[in-house]
């Protein structure tokens, strides 16, 4: 499973990098940037799902 971030949907609510700072960070404007590449391990997957489930814009999808 990987993180798919739709930058066009991201509006900078900042929930992902607050809840999963190991996976996401903020750019200079407050929009999300993914910090990891490739397949997620077990702990990462849990954090990624938490971040995705708190994104008000549905900008994050965890999938293949």
């Amino acid at each position, binding site marked *: 499973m990987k993180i798919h971030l739709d930058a066009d949907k991201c509006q900078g609510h900042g929930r992902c990098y*607050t809840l999963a700072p190991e996976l996401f960070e903020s750019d*200079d404007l407050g929009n999300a940037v993914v910090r990891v590449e490739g397949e997620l391990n077990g702990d990462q997957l849990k954090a990624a799902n938490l971040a995705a489930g708190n994104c008000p814009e*549905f900008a994050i999808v965890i999938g293949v």
Partner: protein
Amino acid sequence: MEKQPVLDFATDFDHTDPTWVADPYAVMEDLRDRCPIAHSERYGGMWVPVLQKDVAAIANDTEHFTSRNIIVNNGRPGEDAPPAPIGVAPPISSDPPFHAIARHLLLSAFAPKPINALEGYSVELCSSLLDAMGDRNEIDAATEYTQHIPVALIAKMLGLPPEDGDLFREFVHIIIEGVDLPVEERIAAFAPIEQYLSAVIDDHRLNPREDLTSYLLNAEIAGQPLLPEHVFGTMVLLVVAGIDTTWSAIGSSLWHLANNPEDLARIVADPELLPAAIEEFLRAYAPVTMARLVKEDFEFEGCPMKADDWVLLSFPAANRDPEFFDRANEVVIDREINRHSAFGLGIHRCLGSNLARLEMNVAIASFIERFPKFEIADSAGVTFSQGQVRGPRTLPIRILERA
């Protein structure tokens, strides 16, 4: 002029009606079951969707809805009419494509890094407000605490004298709660704000400094400095949007904790719960409702919307929609999945959301650290604001335990 009380919110909606002000959630619930997009002839025509899907769709539809005016009032601005007082406050009142340019100028100032740098100041501020309460056991948490915090932060960011706080609160009150005033009175009430902010801008032109006002005066769009009305409008936005809103959010959170001792005790015992609890307070007691104007006649979900009709975009209603949230009407302080829209949705996501969250976290953590047990001293003495920003304006609290 005395307003007629609302008999049926489905056909005669009014967000200043005492029934709505007393308990908007019961009205929303009733509407969801029988008429999920309410209508009103008041304010020149208004629609009020209460389902999350409709609120989200409208927030994301800048083709059919304009943000030219975002506070419902008795004026009904056509394209050529002069903008209502709060009409020109970029970027909140801007549409694409100008919106993105005006917003981009401000985003970096409100990104996590510069905002988190204000944490130390916020902690000191809250601590001094709590100190000022002395050893009294009955306090008004709204007038002695919550209302001072956002004013001080925005004043610091804009480079305004901190002692002017009472003055801004009066400005904001007129703009946000004075929606029932006739248009001429609303415009007249705006004059002191204009004078005050113009003086601040002039002073910053002569004496530039390291603050957001000077930043705006130095900012450029396509190599040109911002127009004076752009600088002024953005200052109005930052003063208005940053004050009542966060004051309300902090106040509603403390109001909840005062009414729910088990939630308070859980957070006191485990302060790591606080950030999730704050998100839940933002969901359940979202303070801000925005508005849009319909651009041209068109049908939305079967509703025949007319050009210049208002749409009241109730994020509080979206946040209580049981189709979208489990246990929507309960406050679950450790809710794990919480896609609330307290800060809006789409391109107008609240610019100050990082600042608001910082203020809420510091204000509530400081308060409960100092007073780990408290309750409402007089429930009849709790009053809520009317209009598009909801929160306690008086909040009598009895302190039961001190740290």
